[in-house]
């Protein structure tokens, strides 16, 4: 049904934009407008590591689009290439890794064509990154003020005093009490949550257009995680900074992100609005991720488990990378599935895409759990 609609709708929007041409006619004008004000538009990102044993395709054809102020949750298991995607956007991939892309447009420029020197100016000013372990990002031998003032003065010609004032302002923004005093301490004086706040503050110092956060709350307690998610959500809303939140925990980003992208073996297998991906997941891998979250609702039952482990990216067999672990796999999966748009903005790469048995039963009984509301999901997820 949807495909039919798409085919009919494809004609008028063809001229407008090539990327969004599968969108139904009703949203086509909006889609055309959207294409021009994209902050980040990456197509065909491939980061391959040319090792002695062969080519490791850590990221293999990833497309990303992000508008200002939008939060994208990039979800995947370890080894799915989600962190390398983030590093590639920052051009932080060392030899033997090579970054290639059809184009990587960011704020009107193509990142792929920038020289290392230009990139260096961009990093920390327009593009910033928050890493998982704040102890690794902060220099243990320098006081917090030294590190923050340095970051301000590296990118703009301001006085040391103004830089310090800016540092205090940003520390206050991320919820650090008495920021002026905290500036004078060394990182080891701070708790893990405070350290991560300082790392976030450093990333925000120069008002970047895009922040890439690589599992910034994984090492933190739930209470501190809640505080950081709260601050981040507030900051994105207030400053219009776009955010890519990389995580392996679907539950963490489901309440935070506007859109989700699920990665598997270096590819995006499903992407769409967060409510769509969580409430009406179409890819069997996403079904598995959702159903394998333990909760009070699953108590006493066997958890759904995705069999096996992530495959080695060294020589992936052709076709769908998930076929060996998939409960819907058939002979058709030996060919590469294309990324299809199943709903407006909701793309799935699977030959057997469709709702999981749980989600389908929810749709049949509308009372059981409505999708799109502010509620938590009934059944497996919550």
């Amino acid at each position, binding site marked *: 049904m949807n495909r039919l609609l798409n085919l009919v709708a494809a004609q008028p929007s063809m001229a407008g934009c090539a990327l969004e041409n599968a969108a139904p006619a009703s949203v086509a004008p909006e889609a055309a407008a959207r294409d021009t004000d994209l902050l980040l538009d990456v197509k065909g990102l491939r980061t391959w590591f040319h090792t002695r044993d062969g080519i490791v395709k850590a990221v293999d054809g990833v497309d990303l689009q992000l508008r200002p102020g939008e939060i994208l949750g990039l979800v995947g298991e370890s080894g799915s290439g989600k962190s390398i995607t983030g590093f590639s956007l920052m051009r932080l991939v060392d030899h033997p890794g090579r970054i290639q892309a059809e184009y990587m447009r960011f704020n009107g420029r193509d990142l792929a064509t920038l020289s290392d020197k230009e990139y260096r100016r961009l990093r920390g000013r327009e593009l910033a990154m928050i890493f998982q372990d704040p102890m690794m990002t902060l220099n243990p031998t320098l006081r917090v003020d030294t590190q923050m003032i340095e970051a301000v003065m590296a990118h703009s010609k301001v006085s040391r005093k103004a830089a310090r004032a800016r540092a205090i302002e940003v520390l206050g923004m991320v919820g650090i009490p008495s920021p002026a005093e905290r500036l004078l301490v060394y990182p080891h004086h701070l708790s893990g949550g405070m350290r991560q706040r300082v790392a976030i503050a450093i990333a925000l110092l120069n008002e970047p257009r895009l922040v890439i956060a690589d599992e910034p709350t994984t090492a933190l307690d*739930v209470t501190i995680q809640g505080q950081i998610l709260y601050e981040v959500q507030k900051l994105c809303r207030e400053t219009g900074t776009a955010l890519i939140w990389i995580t392996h925990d679907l*539950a963490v980003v489901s309440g935070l992100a506007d859109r989700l992208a699920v990665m598997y073996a270096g590819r995006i297998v499903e992407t769409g609005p967060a409510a769509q991906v969580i409430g009406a997941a179409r890819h069997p891998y996403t079904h598995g991720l959702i159903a394998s*979250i*333990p909760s*009070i609702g699953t108590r006493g039952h066997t958890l759904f488990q995705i069999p096996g482990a992530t495959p080695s990216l060294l020589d992936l067999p052709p076709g769908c990378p998930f076929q060996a672990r998939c409960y819907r796999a058939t002979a058709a999966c030996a060919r590469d599935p294309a990324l299809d748009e199943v709903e407006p903005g909701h793309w799935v790469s699977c030959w057997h895409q469709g709702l999981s048995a749980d989600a389908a039963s929810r749709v049949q009984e509308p009372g059981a759990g409505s999708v799109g509301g*502010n509620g938590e999901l009934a059944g497996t997820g919550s």
Partner: protein
Amino acid sequence: MSAKEPILSLHDVRRDYRQPSDMIDRVGRLLRGAGKPPVVQAVAGVNLAVMPGEVIGIVGESGCGKSTLGRMLTGILPPTGGEIRYKGQPVSSLTGAVRRQYELDVQMIFQDPYSSLNPRMRVIDIIGEAPVVHGKVRRRDMEGFVAGLMRKVGLDPAYRFRYPHQFSGGQRQRIGVARALALNPSVIVCDEAVAALDVSIQAQVLNLFMSLRHEFELTYFFISHNLGVVSHISDRVAIMYLGRIVEIGSTDTIFGAAHHPYTQALLKELPVLRTGRRQFDPIKGELPSPLDPPAGCPFHPRCPHAMPRCHTERPLLRRIGPTAAGGREQGLLPGEEGASTADTGIAERETEHLSACHLGDAPS
């Protein structure tokens, strides 16, 4: 062994840490008149009975003493106060064969599958060493024994001559599980055993825990900061804060009718799948330093319901729910005062809901 007797019980167990001080430090303190060096109370008086066959979940933020508690249960770390009893006998007084039996009967699975396995030992030795040393298995039967265990935990026995670095994180955690099972224990202390794993691998290991539990009639002492995991696996949940249990009850009670404001705040922070944007309303502040715990209720600086009384008086664990009419304050183990209640109180105790909070408590 009677099914009603706790297999392990903790009686006012404490663990203090003192910073070692040298001569200069001591003289300096004397001159400054600074008094005794500060003491960190990692565990400050915990009463708990672990029944055979149950799964107890211990939840708390990092620094609340939950791992220290687990280490004391296994005997890795001696308590500095109070008593741990194994099948009714104080562990500190056990000697010889009984002590050995306790040590073998209580095994542990660690958080980090990378650092808890010796990288220079092959899997067959990691799993098989202890049972051979303790005379449970003869050396020439070791290979078959290890192969059987590896099959149980879902590893291919063909990999028995490999080293830990040749396995993925989930597989390594399975090796850790097999190593703990090798001694045929009745209690397994899992210290954040699934925290380092991906969600899909975590589901596999959790399912493994549950199937092993039924097969070997295991008791789990499941330490985790992840409420989702704990709610899935536990029969009973204890919430720890700053070295003390602040609330304990059956899983359904804790997740359905939590009493303590800290538990309620934790539950609110629990990340759940949702289809709408979440309004974050986090609890303020961080765990206070155990070097200088707040007076009164340790949670009062972060508590939304703090009353003047909370600043001065530390609430004790008391019974919540229909039986709370008396508002009787008591420890977890009625056997302490009168042994006569121990026999009858257990069935009740297993579902008992206790909370350490002044809320709803008539001022005494």
